[in-house]
């Protein structure tokens, strides 16, 4: 009866809900930059922005690796160790089998490392799809398996000393922006395309909300799950490459503390813990805010641990602010 005045109002709320996430995250980014510009000495310097864009890509790539399974209604707890395995493989090939191959040795080793990352994810995907066990359990098992295997093969030690060409990947710049940042931006753009403009992305969202209804619609849910986790493994492998190049060494357990932060970053960016929803752009903005907080506090002389505590508080605040909007959507 009174539908006509209500309808446009509803539409504008919906429009808000979609762009809202981006607006909120942008607002937080702007506020945190403004805050530390005023309080942290040297925050606005090129050095600081340089170091921030150097540190962001590792966490960023790992968070992208976490986002895809979350949208599909799962989780991949093995992202950090997958990154380690991929890094170890590349380092091992660069120093061993491919050391004498000159120019093509490095790219070949990188491809092998990425393949190992993708294969690790694929393994999880196959188990999730065909055994039907919950992804948290499967990826937790995989995480411990990868950790143990990596430690066994390296005997707990690390591999360090990459050739010059490899190190430029980690410390080089192009157009004034660090190469790791370019890698991250390219990966994020690629993922955005996949999630919004391909059948895989479409199916991932659907299956994240309701796998059975998606299967009843004629989508090969098993295949999509395998691709989702393979993609996650590939992105983790890419993070492994960036880490190897930046630190010039690799060790099992490297970046382990990032694991739960990647989960935090995804939920901070509005990904639905029950699957079906989550977007790349707010995730990137959220990650930038986290990086700004960490660097800003570091410049202010605060302890690293306090910065971690602030991250946690940040997540809780964003969740609390977002809740009314989620409720109004339902």
């Amino acid at each position: 009866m009174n539908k006509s005045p209500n309808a446009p109002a509803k539409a504008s709320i919906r429009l808000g809900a979609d762009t809202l996430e981006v607006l909120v995250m942008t607002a937080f980014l702007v506020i945190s930059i403004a805050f530390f510009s005023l309080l942290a000495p040297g925050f606005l310097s090129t050095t600081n922005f340089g170091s921030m864009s150097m540190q962001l890509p590792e966490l960023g790539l790992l968070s992208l690796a976490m986002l895809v399974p979350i949208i599909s209604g799962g989780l991949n707890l093995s992202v950090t160790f997958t990154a380690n395995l991929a890094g170890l493989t590349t380092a091992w090939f660069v120093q061993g089998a491919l050391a004498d191959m000159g120019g093509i040795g490095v790219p070949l080793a990188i491809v092998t490392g990425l393949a190992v990352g993708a294969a690790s994810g694929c393994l999880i995907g196959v188990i999730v799809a065909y055994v039907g066990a919950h992804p948290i359990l499967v990826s937790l098992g995989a995480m411990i398996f990868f950790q143990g295997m990596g430690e066994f093969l390296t005997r707990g030690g690390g591999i360090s000393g990459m050739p010059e060409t490899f190190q430029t990947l980690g410390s080089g710049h192009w157009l004034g922006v660090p190469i790791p940042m370019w890698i991250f931006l390219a990966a994020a753009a690629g993922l955005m395309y996949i999630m919004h403009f391909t059948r895989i992305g479409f199916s991932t969202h659907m299956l994240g909300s309701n796998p059975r209804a998606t299967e009843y619609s004629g989508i090969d849910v098993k295949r999509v799950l395998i691709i989702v986790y393979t993609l996650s493994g590939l992105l983790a492998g890419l993070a492994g490459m960036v880490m190897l190049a930046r630190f010039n060494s690799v060790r099992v357990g490297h970046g382990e503390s990032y694991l739960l932060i990647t989960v935090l970053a995804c939920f901070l960016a509005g990904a639905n813990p029950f699957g079906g929803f989550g977007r790349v752009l707010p995730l990137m903005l959220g990650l930038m805010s986290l990086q700004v907080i960490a660097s800003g506090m570091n410049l202010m002389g605060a302890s690293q641990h306090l910065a971690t505590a602030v991250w946690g508080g940040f997540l809780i605040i964003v969740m609390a602010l977002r809740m009314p909007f989620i409720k109004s959507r339902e």
Partner: protein
Amino acid sequence: MSDIAIRARHVSKVFGQSRVLDSVEFELLRGEVMCLAGENGCGKSTLIKIINGVYKPEPGVQFTLGDESLTSISPLEARNRGIHVIWQDLALFPHLTVAENIVFDDYVAKPWKPIAYREALRQSFEIIQQFGFNLDPAARVEELTVAHRQLVAICRVLRAGANIIFMDEPTASLTYKEVQSLLAITRTLADQGISIVLVSHRLAEVLEVCQRVTVLRNGQLVGTYPTEGMTQARLSTLMTGLELEHTPRVNARKGAPVLELDGLSRDGEFEDISFTLNRGEILGLTGLLGAGRTEIAHTLFGMTRPTSGVMRKDGRPLKLRSNRDAVRHKIAYLSEDRFHLGLVQNQSINMNSAVTVLPFLEKPRGFLSPGRIKALTARWVEQLKIKVSDAELAVSSLSGGNQQRVALAKWLATEPDVLILDCPTIGVDVGAKAGIFDIIRGLADQGMAIILISDEAGEIWMNTDRALVLREGRIATEVTPADTTEEALEAVINA
């Protein structure tokens, strides 16, 4: 003491700008079974909540309870006077026993009171005995069938001293036998002086058990009528305000065979199913819940494998390894469970209508165009007259009837030769039902072969060219609606 259990006059309720109830009058006699009928959104629930004290009505209302006049009822007063509602979800605690659920009310306001299990068992047993129910007070509620859970809910309100019970869609998920026994129970209760109000979509059973029916439409009282001499058709008309046709489908044309089944069996589900489905035909597949209707549909849609027998499509043998194979062979299946299987409720109307045809929306390969998805949805929204304010909204924001149209759209988009519709009107209003069947008949007239699964005799009778009645996984008989009456068909289904 008068014969009136409760009377409410001038009941109005305004939410925001809309008047949900407009000066409605409601009267219930002692020991009466009454039906409260009306389409979704007509104000039934609001009326119940007002009588139950949950909502405060607009001023001007007058209640008469027995010999007493009141101008308002609070939830506590409603309880004290024995007014109780059993909502469709029953609100039981599945992990607790029957007895614990029955005596639960004793403990609500007393969190520290220790639970007296023996006493609970004894008291529950008394209630169960008194009304002659077949219920084990020590069983856990989660182990019971829906029908038995309903008995637990009834015992609970009886123990709390109910003399007026509202039951919201009590028969929605029951089998025919269970419905019959529930209806018998309502009669027993009524004989003991308890007044019962049933809210139900199933008109047939309403007419069978109730003495009077109160009809609401758009928040207004249409009237209260005796069920004596009332027909389903007339009741539909009262509820919707529309004259709905109530005649069997007549189909002159019948095309070439599309789907042939020969001795199709699947162990433990169905046996020796043979039939031929022709173009332009609507074939009914009916029988009680559990007769094998949905199981056959699942096999035809490639979700399960037959253990023996042959399927042929357009004369060629058909072997399906998955439902994707079925879609490729132009077979579509609309699930009976729209909420869990038919649609992805949280995702948008756009995505739900496009999900079945993703490969066709990809152009160039590898690029799934949002524009094409929107255009596809827009086309079906127009063609099926779906009421959508914004196709980016979650499909759950639509009414049942409109959701079902989206579910239809997603399968029609695959341009099927054979469309299997599994109970397409579950949770859909009477008026919207008619709209959906108009669409279905239109599709058949254009040459689509349709299998309509339903346990409602009226639907089968009005909409199919012939109907196969299943019993325990086998075809019991074949019925041609045009040659029989609705009542006769109903008797065959329930035999």
